[in-house]
């Protein structure tokens, strides 16, 4: 009698996980690695900034106003005598809080509505998608302005204003992914095991849309940073003396010929930061979706 030999133990227990493989792919993109280092530095400064900044952001030294870069003020000072280096370090913290906070708010709204629309379909889907359409139809920037004007110019209001206007693209992305998955063999297999809608959503669908979400999140942060700076340009950003990149850039524009350092340093740091986030997002995209 023939015996079906099933010696398939050839594949050994492997240590490297999917994350390990993704990290190896990520490392190959040099720009993404640079971006990650800069972002890490940025995060670090965001946390420890207040302790390492040579001056408090409120300290104004009128005697040293508008002085060019020197040993005492390596990035120079502005027209009120604020040390620009310290201002930048303090700005990092504010920028991070708002950018991360706002992106998180958008993201959470987007993920809940997107999953709901995608999995439920029908009327829920219709209403949510019309809402998404209207969000895209209204210029978000003006909506932000209106919200900031009515809520005030503090940290919380700005964070919320940017957050609740930015969810539409996340919702649309997640819905499209959920839709493509809803009729997949994987979901059908889960259904045939007897899984409930909630179990399918959390254990089968969500983990598989997470990759795209992480990438979208990484692209969303620099976007929100830009919106925040944009608000400052029209005078609706963080209320001075709270330092922010937007404020610094907006004010430096007036004196760019006389005191160019006021623009150079914040602009360079801000630009590199935006690019770094984009590089990281790019790297993540390649690393997490090797085929796409």
């Amino acid at each position: 009698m023939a015996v079906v030999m099933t010696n398939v133990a050839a594949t050994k227990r492997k240590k490297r996980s999917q994350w390990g493989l993704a990290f190896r792919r990520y490392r190959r993109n040099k720009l993404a690695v640079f971006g990650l280092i800069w972002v890490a530095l940025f995060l670090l400064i965001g946390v420890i900034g207040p302790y390492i900044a040579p001056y408090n952001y409120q300290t104004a030294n009128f005697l040293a106003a508008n002085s060019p870069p020197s040993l005492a003020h390596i990035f120079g000072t502005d027209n009120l005598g604020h040390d620009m280096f310290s201002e930048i370090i303090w700005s990092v913290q504010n920028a991070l809080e708002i950018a991360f906070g706002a992106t998180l708010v958008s993201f959470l709204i987007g993920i809940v509505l997107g999953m709901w629309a995608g999995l439920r379909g029908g009327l829920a889907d219709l209403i949510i998608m019309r809402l998404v359409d209207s969000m895209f139809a209204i210029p978000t920037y003006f909506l932000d302005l209106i919200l900031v004007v009515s809520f005030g110019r503090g940290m919380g209001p700005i964070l919320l204003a940017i957050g609740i206007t930015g969810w539409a693209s996340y919702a649309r992305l997640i819905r499209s992914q959920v839709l493509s998955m809803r009729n997949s063999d994987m979901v059908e297999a889960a259904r045939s095991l007897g899984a409930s809608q909630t179990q399918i959503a959390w254990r089968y669908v969500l983990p598989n849309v997470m990759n795209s979400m992480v990438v979208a999140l990484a692209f969303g942060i620099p976007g929100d940073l830009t919106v925040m700076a944009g608000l400052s340009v029209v005078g609706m950003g963080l209320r001075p003396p709270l330092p922010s990149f937007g404020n610094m850039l907006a004010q430096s524009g007036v004196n760019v010929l006389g005191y160019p350092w006021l623009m150079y340093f914040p602009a360079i740091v801000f630009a590199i930061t935006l690019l770094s986030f984009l590089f990281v997002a790019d790297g993540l995209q390649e690393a997490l979706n090797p085929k796409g």
Partner: protein
Amino acid sequence: MTQELLRVTDLKTEFQRGDEKVYTVNGVSFSLREGETLGIVGESGSGKSVTVHSMLGLLQGAGKVSSGQAIFQNRVDLLQLRRKQLEDIRGRDIGVIFQDPMTSLNPTMRIGNQIMEGMLTHQYASRKKAFERTLDLLHEVGIPEPKARFRNFPFEFSGGMRQRVMIAMAIACEPQLLIADEPTTALDVTVQMQILALMQKLKQDRKMSVLMITHDFGVATNFCDRILVMYGGKVMEAASLDTFIRRPLHPYTIALKSSIIEVGDRHKKLQAIPGMAKVWNAPPHHCPFYERCTFATQQCLKEVPELTQVDDQEDHWLACHHVEEVLKSVG
């Protein structure tokens, strides 16, 4: 004696996958005579498709031919040609059909124009002649109402009809060699029969050589004159059809043949081949079938068996150290 049309010698192809190298084709040699139909049979990962893609310059991604020759018509080495020269030969002297006609047809172009295009780029015919010839070809491959169908798009055709269009494109310039890579795998059985019947008629009418790649023994044995069995990127056995059917000698061929389930086998006890094919991250240093072979000995682990002729009388080639033992066991 008919002329040799294609001779492939010691072809090797490797792929770069991330940090690893995958050795897909590990020294394949074979020849194809004029008017002959050769079937390359093997399972996935055997290197049968890559062998042909290497010859045609159609390797995807990080694939690279690392050695070998493929002499066509006793005059050119396909592996040494530049891209442009190869494109000249492909489509004119060598026609190609793939498994999935939907992905090889241009979805936005009328099928008639697609068939004409090949003839025009190879300057095989004038625009007017090409148009008339396209109508004839459509008729010949069994597409009713060629005039009307000329203006259709691929999506308006069924799978079988699309494969007919592919065949028309492949034979438009009257190639000497037709390469068919799993041409019927995606099709239903009754349509498979139609396509095979069509290909057989075309090849007989034109005295065309055909190189058919398939995983299906039934298709290979009913369509081809000679069979080549590949495993682990190497040729295990090559024989004329009659020898192959009546007296296969490689343990892999024998095992594979006995694991085919055919109608009428209901009460037969099946014999499964244990284990599974492996991926080569280094060039093979032992017989590729070693792990799954019932005849394997230390010698198989030490030396890669060479493809040698079984005896001078027969067109029968074998890569196995244990011909005698196998002969004894099959009686």
